[in-house]
C-alpha cells in the first residue's frame, strides 16, 4: 500500500470536510505553496476529491508546471473532470456600462460553479473543494467592492454546509496593514474554521528556513460531534519539488 508520508501541515489541518480555510501570507513569505499542497492532496490517487479552482493571479500553465513537479498532472485531471479551472485573469467582473454591476458578474460566476457542482454525480459532491487563489485580486476585479466579494464568499460558504464541500481562500495580510479597521480580512478570519498564516522568521532570512506557518484550527463539529481546536506552529523550507516542514529548532 502506498501511503504518502503525512507531514506536519497535513497533521495540523486534519480533514477539511465542510470547512473554510483562510490562508494569509505576506510579500516576504508567499503561501501559494499551501495551495499547491492542498491541490495535490485533493487530486492525489487516494482521494476522489474534485477541485473547482478560481484563478485570479496565475494562468493554468503556471499551476500545471508546478503541480507536475509535485507529481500531479492537472491537464489529465481536468480531462477526467476532477479539476475545473476558471481562468479569471482577464475577466472583468464589473462592466463599465453601468447596466451590469460587479455583483452581477459574481452572480454569474457563482452560477457557473453551481452548474459544475450539479453536473457531478451525487457521491462526488461531498468531496468538492473550491479554491480561490487570491481574494485580494478578486476584490480588484470586482472594482474594490468588498461587499460583493464577501457576498460571493458567503454563498460559497453556504455551499459548504449545504453539500459538505470545503472552501480554500488565499489572501495577503500586509496589504491591509495601513487601514485602521481591516474589515475585509477580519470578516474572513471570523468565517474561517482553519486559519493558516505564513510569516517570515522573526529573526530574519535564513537559507535553511524559509518561513514559519501558524495553523489555527478552530472548533469543527463533524457528523459525530467530534471537536478539536488547536494551534500548530512550524517552519518550512520550499524545495524544488517538495516542501519540508519541521518544528522550530529541529534543524541545525
Amino acid at each position, binding site marked *: 500500500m502506498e501511503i504518502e508520508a503525512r507531514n506536519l501541515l497535513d497533521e495540523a489541518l486534519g480533514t477539511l470536510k465542510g470547512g473554510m480555510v483562510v490562508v494569509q501570507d505576506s510579500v516576504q513569505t508567499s503561501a501559494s505553496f499551501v495551495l499547491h499542497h492542498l491541490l495535490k492532496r485533493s487530486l492525489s490517487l487516494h482521494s476522489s476529491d474534485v477541485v473547482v479552482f478560481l484563478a485570479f493571479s496565475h494562468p493554468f500553465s503556471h499551476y500545471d508546471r508546478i503541480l507536475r513537479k509535485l507529481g500531479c498532472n492537472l491537464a489529465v485531471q481536468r480531462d477526467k473532470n476532477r479539476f475545473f479551472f476558471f481562468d479569471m485573469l482577464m475577466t472583468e467582473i464589473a462592466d463599465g456600462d453601468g447596466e451590469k454591476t460587479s455583483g452581477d458578474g459574481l452572480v454569474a460566476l457563482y452560477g457557473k460553479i*453551481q452548474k459544475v457542482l450539479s453536473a457531478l454525480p451525487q457521491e462526488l*459532491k461531498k468531496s468538492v473543494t473550491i479554491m480561490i487563489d487570491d481574494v485580494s485580486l478578486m476584490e480588484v476585479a470586482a472594482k474594490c467592492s468588498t461587499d460583493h466579494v464577501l457576498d460571493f464568499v458567503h454563498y460559497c460558504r453556504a455551499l459548504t*454546509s449545504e453539500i*459538505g464541500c470545503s472552501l480554500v481562500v488565499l489572501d495577503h495580510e500586509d496589504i491591509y496593514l495601513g487601514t485602521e479597521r481591516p474589515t475585509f480580512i477580519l470578516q474572513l478570519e*471570523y468565517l474561517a474554521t482553519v486559519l493558516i498564516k505564513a510569516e517570515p522568521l522573526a529573526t530574519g532570512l535564513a537559507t535553511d528556513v524559509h518561513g514559519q506557518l501558524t495553523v489555527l484550527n478552530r*472548533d469543527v463539529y463533524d457528523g459525530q460531534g467530534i471537536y478539536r*481546536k488547536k494551534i500548530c506552529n512550524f517552519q518550512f523550507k520550499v524545495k524544488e519539488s517538495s516542501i519540508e516542514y519541521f518544528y522550530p529548532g529541529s534543524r541545525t
Partner: protein
Amino acid sequence: MAESICRALRDGALEGEHAAALTIKDSIASPFGFDVFAHVFSKLSSYILASKYQSRGLVLVAFSRSPSFYVDLLKRRGVDVASSHNWIQILDCYTDPLGWKDGVGECGSGTKSLNEASQIASFCKNVKDVETFFSMVVELGTGLVGRGKVRFCVAIDSVSEMLRHASISSVAGLLSKLRSHDQVSSIFWLLHSDLHEDRVTAVLEYMSSMVASIEPLNQYANGQRGNWNNLSLLEQNCTRGKFHIRFKRRNGRVRVACEEFCIEQSGIIFTSISSEDEKINQSLLPKLQFNLQLSEKERIDRAKVVLPFEHQGNGKPIQIYDGRRSQEDSVTEAVPISTSKSQTNEETGKGEIIYFRDSEDEMPDSDEDPDDDLDI
C-alpha cells in the same frame, strides 16, 4: 453571571416596558461570541420548552449558520427537537440572502440535506429590504404563539451580517421596533465589534438592557490585530477568555460583573474569576503605597532628559560630567534650594533630573570620602 443573563431574558419584558435585550459582542482576539450565543440560545430554548415562563416561542434569524446547524446544536445540547415546529421558527438568511440562487437555478441537491430543518425554516431572499424583514419576523412569531397576549423571543445570530446589507439607522430602527413590539418578550443578538465603527457598537449597546462582551484573557500589546509571534499567549486565548456583563436597570443603575469562560467539547463553561488572580489582586493592590506606574506626561518628561554621559552628537564639544558642579550650575544655584539640587544640561527646557533629598541630615553631594568613618 452568565446564568443571570439567561434568566433575565427568560423573565422577559415587564408590562408597559420594552423587551429585555442583550448584545453579545466579541472581537477577533477572542472570537467566541458565537459560543456564547449558542449557549444563550440553547438555554432559552429549554426554558421555552418548559413553558412556565413568559415566552412560548422563539424566532431565530440565521445569518451566519445554516438552519440544520441549529437543529444539530439543539440535539447536541439535549433539547427535544421532535416538537420543534411548535415553538421555534428559523428565518433562513444564510442559504440565499440575496436571491442569487433564483437567478442561476437551484442545483436541486441541497434540499435533501435540510430535511428536519426545512420544516421550521423559511427563506428570506432579500435581506436588504428591512421592512419586509421585520414583518417576516413578526409573522413567524405570531404564527407560533398566535395573536394575543402570549409572547415570543427573537434571536439574531449576526447583526454584523445585517449591517453589511443595510445601514445602521435602518438596522437600529428594525431592532427597536422589534423591541417595542407587544408580543416580543426578549431579544438578543451577536455583534463582531471590530468590524464596525465605534458608534455602531454604541448605538446597539444603547438599545440593549444587557451587554455581554467577550475579551481575551491577555490583551495584546499592539492594537487590534493579534500578535501571532507569542504562541503561548495565542494558545491561551484560543480556548479561554474573559466575559464582562453590564446590566442596565430601568432607573439607569448599571451593574457590572466579570467572569471567565473556557470552551470545551460540550460547549462553553463559565467560571468565576480564577482564584489565583483574585489572590494577587487582594493581597497586592490594597497594601501598595507607591505608584509604580508612570503617567504619560511623566514618561515623556523622562524621555526628554539628557543623561550626563550621553554623547549629544550635535557638533558641540562633548561635555562630560566630572562629578563636580560646573560653573554655571553653581551660578544658577546661587539661591540654594533646600531640598533639591539640579543637574541641568546646557539645553535646559529639555528635561532635568531633580533630586529630592530623603532627609535633612543627608549631606549634599561632596567629594568627601563616604567611607571616611569606616573603622576596620
